[in-house]
């Protein structure tokens, strides 16, 4: 039996987390993994929302600096604002990542689960980094949800 899509996206999301120095694989790392896919359903879903890899990275950085600003913190040394990759892979999947997978899996059998299910899981999040990033990036969440649902219903 070949590896399922969800296995592959989790491995790539863990690598995204490592590259950003995160200790856990979170929802934003799943989003980065999806935004980096060149084939399949992901580009057609995410491109109209303006969510390519660079746009997600840029919005993550803006969310970070915005949240520091909200705490009254300003940083003179640009160097420390940049993500640093970790030599270690994340030790586990974080709560936001777990929620995304739960919602995605509720909508599909494991072998049928694809990018659109993950997108629906990501859009289901109410709190945390991802909803803030989508708002900062000006994403039309309802239009994206409708495209993802159309793909899911079509399979």
């Amino acid at each position: 039996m070949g590896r399922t899509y969800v296995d592959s996206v989790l491995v790539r999301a863990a690598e995204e987390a490592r590259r950003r120095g995160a200790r856990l694989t979170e929802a934003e790392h799943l989003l980065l993994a999806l935004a980096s896919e060149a084939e399949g359903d992901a580009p057609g879903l995410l491109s109209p929302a303006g969510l390519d890899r660079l746009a997600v990275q840029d919005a993550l950085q803006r969310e970070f600096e915005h949240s520091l600003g909200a705490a009254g913190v300003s940083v003179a040394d640009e160097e420390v604002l940049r993500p640093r990759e970790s030599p270690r892979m994340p030790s586990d999947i974080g709560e936001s990542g777990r929620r995304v997978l739960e919602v995605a899996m509720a909508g599909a059998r494991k072998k049928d689960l694809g990018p659109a299910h993950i997108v629906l899981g990501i859009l289901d999040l109410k709190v945390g980094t991802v909803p803030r990033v989508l708002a900062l990036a000006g994403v039309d969440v309802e239009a994206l949800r409708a495209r993802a649902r159309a793909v899911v219903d079509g399979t």
Partner: protein
Amino acid sequence: MEDAERDPGEELAAVVAMRRLADRMEDAAVERAMRAGWSWSDVAQALGVTRQAVHKKHVRRLIDAGVQLRRRK
């Protein structure tokens, strides 16, 4: 500000951001100290953590970055 006016989401996001900033500052500062010839014990004392903790957290990254580490005396 009244508690009811505060957005917990904003406050928690600020905590996440400051934690991340502190981690990145620690990485950069420990690397600078080790490049300047500090010992693990010096860095641990300055950070207020055990020598084992600071070693475990940073040794692999510093070796990967090609930093010459001082032998323990």
